[in-house]
């Protein structure tokens, strides 16, 4: 028989881990099982494939762990330019355009009228604007000239009946032998505005009579050829040129005779620098930019050629595409000629047979040999000859055209630009860039926008609902009526329609109304826009979207608040009032705290419903989760993948919020 010591009646082992698992498993409700299984299957599907992973990342605003790209910026800075040649675009009565050099403008009247001549067609309209009278050289044979202009130029080509003349500024004109009044060998001063140390043109100089007639036209948009300090030339519209100063390019450093001071113009033009702000250095802002450039390469320099995929920098521009291109290994070129000018950055080399000096960047030069040794660019006798090799390089780009002699390539070099803060004339755009853990402000699209709008709109809706709910139970007839009207009207309009009304109907109308309502509305909208700009860096229809959603949900929340307040026993408010509290005080300290506990479940319910209704802001072109999904589907045509991803995200967010609401409920539940 058993021993005499006391033994437990039943042996119960403490639950093993297996028992715990089984218990957990059995206690999970069916719906959760199904949900978990479906969600897991969907997640495996969406993250199992590279393309689909990218879709999921795109829907979540492409999050990263860390990023250096905190801000995407567009700064406007002013650049100093030398205006080399200026021309205006002139329109005649028949709307034809003529390009007119400034040198050929005889007169310009700021406010003038160009009238139709008597023989003009019926649809001719007279024009107003800057009336320009200019010299037109290519005149029809039956017109007698209004005048003769005498010019000199270098004969560069001679045929039987037409002679090509190059003028001082490089322009070439064709003349007939009869127009030449004098020919002699000599020297012609070159255009020192284009290259201050250029050489005079030597050859047969011709003096030409150019007959012209005077034409009139109205100034349209003009073009100017501008030269930057580093020699880069481009054509820009005259309208954007600012601060024009007349200067003179003197003869101090010019070694050749004859020399005359040349009038020129110095100005500034605005330039936009677009890129990623990478940091600051004292007063300077560093911006990383990507520029597309087209370059021409001597085909003989190509040592090796491979097809490659040219990566574009998605950090700077998330929408850019990698493209198919080539990778070229180029040999270094050997250059020799006379050194005509030497600056910190460039060498200018004059070679035989070329009319213009070649410009090279000193950084790219290796193995330089000067003859005589240590000569400088000013040396004339003997002239300073130089031979150097350019460094070989590897270039990646897309071939635009090629033949036996040269290849034209489109490249995207990246560079860091240093902008002095004082030079910035305008900040055109400064928005948070990448979404990353260390840059949460950058997470403002896709699922993040959905979450932000949900919280913002719901908070506002709570306020609206509380106010109107209290109006309804206040007993003051006027307030009760206003609240009832609001609730009934808004509940009768679908939320999508309400949003569109707020964005496209109410917003602009309110701002345009006269009087105090218009003023208040304008203030509110300006304030909201400013808030948007500070937080998100941009103004859009976001404010209208949040207000629309809040007003829409406010009606439902008002009813919930009303029900909650009315469910509190009348005795509570009587007791509160008899203690001497005012109506508002009793609400705040007695009624509402109790009411809120009761109505927390429906409030939480509406919160979760709000999350899904935020998808409507896609109709306002706001980049929330749904809009991003639509954009991806429209671009990739993979509709199924994209929308499975969208649905997965919505379910995950809803589940998370649902758990959050349950937790809050449990915390405030009445015992």
């Amino acid at each position, binding site marked *: 028989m058993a021993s005499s010591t006391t033994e437990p009646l039943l042996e119960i082992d403490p639950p093993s881990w297996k028992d715990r698992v*089984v218990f957990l498993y*059995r206690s999970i409700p069916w719906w959760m*099982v*199904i949900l978990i*299984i*479906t969600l*897991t*299957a*969907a997640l*495996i*599907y969406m993250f199992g494939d590279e393309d689909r992973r990218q879709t999921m990342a795109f829907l979540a605003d492409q999050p990263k762990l860390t990023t250096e790209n905190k801000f*995407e*910026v*567009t700064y*406007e800075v002013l650049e100093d330019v030398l205006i080399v040649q200026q021309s205006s675009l002139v329109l005649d009565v028949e709307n034809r355009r003529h390009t007119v050099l400034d040198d050929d403008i005889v007169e310009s009247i700021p406010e003038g009228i160009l009238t139709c001549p008597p023989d003009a067609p019926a649809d001719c309209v007279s024009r107003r604007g800057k009336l320009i009278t200019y010299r037109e050289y290519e005149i029809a044979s039956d017109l007698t000239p209004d005048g003769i202009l005498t010019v000199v130029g270098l004969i560069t080509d001679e045929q039987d009946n037409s002679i090509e003349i190059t003028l001082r500024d490089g322009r070439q004109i064709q003349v007939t032998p009869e127009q030449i009044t004098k020919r002699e060998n000599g020297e012609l001063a070159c255009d020192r505005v284009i290259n201050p140390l250029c050489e005079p043109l030597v050859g047969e100089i011709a003096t030409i009579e150019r007959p012209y007639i005077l034409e009139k036209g109205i100034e349209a*948009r003009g073009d100017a050829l501008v030269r930057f300090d580093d020699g880069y030339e481009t054509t820009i*519209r005259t*309208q954007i040129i600012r601060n024009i100063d007349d200067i003179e390019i003197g003869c101090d450093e010019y070694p050749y005779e004859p020399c005359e001071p040349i009038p020129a113009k110095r100005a500034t033009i605005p330039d*936009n620098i*677009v890129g990623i702000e990478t940091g600051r250095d004292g007063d300077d802002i560093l911006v990383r930019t990507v520029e597309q450039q087209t370059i021409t390469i001597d085909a003989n320099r190509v040592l090796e050629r491979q097809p490659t995929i040219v990566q574009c920098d998605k950090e700077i*521009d998330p*929408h*850019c*595409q990698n493209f198919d291109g080539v990778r070229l290994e180029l040999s270094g070129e050997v250059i020799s000629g006379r050194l005509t000018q030497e600056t910190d950055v460039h060498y200018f080399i004059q070679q035989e047979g070329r009319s213009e000096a070649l410009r090279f960047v000193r950084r790219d030069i290796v193995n330089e040999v000067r003859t005589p040794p240590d000569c400088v660019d000013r040396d004339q006798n003997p002239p300073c000859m130089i031979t150097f090799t350019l460094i070989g390089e590897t270039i990646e780009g897309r071939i635009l055209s090629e033949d036996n002699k040269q290849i034209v390539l489109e490249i995207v070099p990246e560079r860091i630009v240093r902008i002095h803060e004082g030079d910035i004339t305008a900040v*055109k*755009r400064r*928005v948070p860039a990448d979404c990353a853990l260390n840059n949460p402000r950058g997470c403002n699209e896709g699922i993040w926008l959905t979450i932000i709008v949900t919280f913002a709109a719901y908070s506002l809706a709570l306020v609206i609902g509380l106010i109107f709910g209290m109006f309804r139970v206040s007993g003051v007839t006027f307030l009760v009526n206003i609240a009832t009207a609001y609730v009934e009207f808004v509940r009768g309009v679908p939320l999508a329609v309400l949003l569109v009304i707020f*964005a*496209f109907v109410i*917003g*602009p109308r309110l701002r345009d109304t006269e009087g105090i309502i218009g003023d208040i509305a304008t203030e509110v909208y300006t304030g909201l826009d400013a808030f948007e700009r500070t937080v998100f860096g*941009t*103004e*859009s*229809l976001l404010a209208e979207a949040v207000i629309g959603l809040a007003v829409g949900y406010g009606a439902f929340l008002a009813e919930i608040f009303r029900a909650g307040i009315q469910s509190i026993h009348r005795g509570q408010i009587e007791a509160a009032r008899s203690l001497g509290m005012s109506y508002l005080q009793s609400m705040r300290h007695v009624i509402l705290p109790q009411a809120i506990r009761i109505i927390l479940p429906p409030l939480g319910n509406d919160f979760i419903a709000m999350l899904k209704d935020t998808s409507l802001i896609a*109709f306002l*072109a*706001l980049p929330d989760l749904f*809009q991003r999904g*639509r*954009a991806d*589907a*429209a*671009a990739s*045509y*993979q*509709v*199924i*993948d994209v929308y*499975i991803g969208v649905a997965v995200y919505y379910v995950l967010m809803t589940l998370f919020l649902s758990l959050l609401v349950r937790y809050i409920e449990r915390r405030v539940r009445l015992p």
Partner: protein
Amino acid sequence: MQRRLLLTFTILILAIGIAFPVAAANQPQQASEGRAQVVGEVIRVGTDAAYPPFEELNEDGEFVGFDIDLMEAIAEDAGFEIEWINAPFDTIFTALAEGEFDAVISAATITEEREEIVDFSEPYFVASQSIAVSLDLAEEVFGPEDLVGLRIGVQLGTTGELYAQEELEGVEIFSFDTAPLAFQALGQGDVDAVIVDTPTTEEILATNPDLEAVIVGEPLTEEFYGIAVNEDFPELLEAINLSLENIIQDGTYAEIYEEWFDVPPPEDFLPDEEDEDMAEATAEPTEEATEEPAG
């Protein structure tokens, strides 16, 4: 416990079993079988009817526009009837590929990406994109490079949206559901510029002077519109191409074009020279007889 376990596993297998075939079926589905013939059939044609002057709904809710007239003329020549279906543009090609309709004519540019899922007819129109800005910005914006730092409105899924994404730097792009909505946002100041096909931009700006907007700069691209047809319906494509050519040759295209645009169409869409004489000769023999007296 056993039953629960069994049921759980069944659902698990079902869920995974559904997920993978769904993945495999990512390709758009086939068009309905048995549409091998075209003549006498009712062809469903999808269009985004908010794009004047190509397609829009008039006050009576009828489809009107250049595309509408053109397609009706093609249908008459080819011998089929049209059922018009209004569909949003951003999903219109996917819908076509899935068999929602048989063809799409909606001022749709022929692009490589779209060619992958649908077939396009021969081009029937040459168009481009334009920039529209409000009057006060017209002093500063002369071309795409001046759009830096501005907010651009486009229509979702169009080549205008594509242009803005690929060619413009430092801009913010807002993709609206329809073109008129984008212009409305422009009129309100919620976007600074709109990039939409030139003919439509001109039409919307002309009929809505209260938008206070103008076109600036040169046309941005050169694009060709085509009629999209479901890949599994080559007979329809052939019929459309044939009829399109017929319409061009007999002058019907020119008529429709002049009605909507007030000017004759570009040369490629006019009848060829020799055929023109032949067409005149065969079409109006009596007139010719009176013009040229015998002898």
